[in-house]
């Protein structure tokens, strides 16, 4: 197993290297560069433009720059952004990566859970109006033109109902008189930590409630969800000295993008689970279980769904990788300052170091999620052994 993981890690590194070389040269093959954009003012003499180009290192041959960039990358130096000079790229990425991760991890997990639980019920109750309507809804959510769907969500929840803010990361008017040391990332990272601690407590509670007698189990399941998050809310409300309102501001901006990405991901997972369940229900052991007279719910959840999980797991992990790049759409429509939006903005103004940084981070996350998928198979299906 460990040997396999090591082998895969090596492969991941090799892929990353190839990916970087290809994308760097691809970016370099473009006509024009950022020096043209920065010196659009006609008063700037052409000589100055040449000096700027030389200072940014843009006069060197592409291959040399690619080698310099990649060797610096593995030393941990991602360069300096051209458009937000002199801010280091690593700094920008470290600020924006958590925002993307929070958005997509929470949305993917919720949509996976919801899609899996409803997909297995749908496959079990085959035929009839429910199946066709839910398939149509699933297909609609899966293939809907994402920008339009996001706009509809904004229209419904923030314009028509007025419940949630329409986009962006925070409401700047609210943040005018914050204390000196408080900024968006300060609050956001603490929110992430408190949410992680809350989820950890929930997981522990859910595991512990498995040992309780079945009469108490449902109540303790609910309690282990409600109590930790109640504690988190109480902590932010009363024990942070008024910082709770800022956290609430970020949270309210987070809800709508998460909801949109969740709904879009839900369709795919639901359809995939249904197909996978239909194949599993054909197996002989399901027939055996039925013949033994086991309750339907046990057959569905314990015998069929666990085996049907395997392809859906692939789908989940691919979805995390895919939603990071597909996240460009969602992040742009919601003006959510994550990696995707950074990539799009950097690419359109030809800020090569920043675009490379964002693209590499997306690539690394995709590669890691594929690795996790392959390792996860071994745990989900004991028949799979890696050598």
């Amino acid at each position, binding site marked *: 197993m460990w040997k396999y993981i090591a082998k895969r890690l090596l492969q991941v590194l090799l*892929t990353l290297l190839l990916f970087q070389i290809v994308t760097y040269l*691809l970016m370099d093959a473009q006509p024009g560069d950022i020096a043209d954009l920065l010196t659009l003012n006609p008063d700037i003499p052409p000589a100055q433009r040449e000096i700027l180009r030389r200072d940014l290192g843009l006069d060197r041959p592409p291959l040399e720059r690619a080698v310099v960039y990649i060797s610096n990358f593995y030393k941990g130096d991602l360069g300096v952004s051209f458009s937000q000079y002199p801010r280091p790229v690593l700094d920008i990425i470290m600020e924006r990566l958590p925002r993307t991760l929070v958005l997509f991890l929470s949305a993917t997990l919720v949509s996976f859970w919801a899609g899996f639980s409803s997909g297995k019920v749908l496959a079990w109750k085959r035929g009839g109006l429910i199946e066709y309507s839910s398939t149509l809804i699933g*297909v609609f959510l899966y293939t*809907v033109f994402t920008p*339009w769907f996001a706009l509809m969500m904004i229209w419904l929840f923030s314009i028509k109902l007025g419940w949630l803010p329409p986009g962006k990361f925070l409401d700047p008017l609210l943040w005018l008189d914050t204390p000196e040391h408080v900024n968006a990332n300060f609050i956001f990272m603490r929110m992430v930590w408190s949410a992680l601690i809350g989820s950890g407590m929930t997981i522990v509670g859910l595991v512990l409630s498995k040992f309780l007698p079945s009469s108490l189990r449902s109540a303790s399941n609910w309690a282990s969800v409600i109590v930790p998050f109640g504690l988190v809310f109480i902590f932010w409300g009363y024990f942070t000295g008024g910082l709770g309102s800022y956290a609430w501001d970020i949270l309210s901006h987070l809800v709508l993008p998460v909801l949109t990405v969740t709904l879009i991901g839900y369709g795919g997972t639901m359809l995939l689970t249904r197909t996978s369940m*239909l194949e599993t229900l054909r197996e002989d052991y399901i027939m055996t279980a039925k013949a033994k007279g086991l309750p339907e719910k046990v057959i569905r959840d314990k015998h069929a769904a666990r085996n049907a999980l395997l392809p859906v797991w692939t789908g989940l992990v691919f979805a995390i990788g895919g939603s990071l790049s597909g996240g460009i759409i969602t992040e742009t429509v919601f003006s959510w300052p994550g990696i995707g939006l950074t990539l799009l903005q950097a690419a359109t103004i030809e800020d090569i170091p920043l675009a490379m940084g964002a693209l590499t981070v997306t*690539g690394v996350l995709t590669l890691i999620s594929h690795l996790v998928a392959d390792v996860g198979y071994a745990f989900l299906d004991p028949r799979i052994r890696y050598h």
Partner: protein
Amino acid sequence: MTVVQNSERVLEPLWRIRLKLFARGFKKNWALFAESPIGLIGLGVIVFFGLIALAQPILVNTVWEPKVYDPINGFDIEIPYHPSPPSARHLLGTDVLGRDVLSQLMYSSRFEFALGLISAIVTVLIATTIGAVSAYFGGLVDTILMRLVDLVIMVPFLAVLIVMSALMGVGMIELALVIGILSGFGGTAIVIKSQALSVKVKPFVDVARVAGGGHAHIIFTHLVPNLMPISLLYMMFVVTGAIFSEAVLSFFGLTEIQMSWGLMINTTQVFGYLMRFDTWWLLFPASLSITFLCAAFYMVGRALDEVVNPRLRER
């Protein structure tokens, strides 16, 4: 044509037997396909958009005056203020630049079909060849090709497309080729390879080899025809992906395509009509067309999946 001479009577020519077999197979598969309303709905939507795409050039040359109804350069002088709401003259209104929205919609659907078709064909050509070759030869060829596929799968597809088109400005054909190549070297190849592995061990492949068939002969006349059903299935999913990617790229204004559904929404956005629902005809027709056509190809793909994969069928 070959005529098989029997001792008593002249049998039918071979091509007619093949045609009959094909017709019989088609009838059987059509019956399976028609069992699911999902597939029929999808097919209906595709046919609808196909008719729309064919009707536009006819309409422009007969009923519609080209100067007014041209999807790219048209302008209606008789209406004082653009965008104008739907009227008898313009069934879906006009856009900000005074062009007829319905005409744009119909004109674009032709290009969406072309884009989808080109990228699907490229994908299937590449994926089928890779799948068949790597399943047939195995060993080193298989390893190299599959590592290549692994590499392409790991690349964030849309991010690369966005960076590429932001920097270079791609047209329709280039976009279709890139999408086709990326998805051809991607997951489709693995699925087709696994199918090819199960075909490869069938007796007729051994028979062909014993009869002296070369590698190329066996791959292209014995393996590939048996991979066609599953290739067709994956073509549908590629079309969905291609139309969607094009729409997103055009929506961001990154392509150099003259008119497409995504570009219609981009125009709406550029002129600031995106979040205004009093001018719904600038946003809804194009967005819904993208959604419906993508969904239609996906649904046909799913219905084909039930034809190809007997384990999914109800009976």
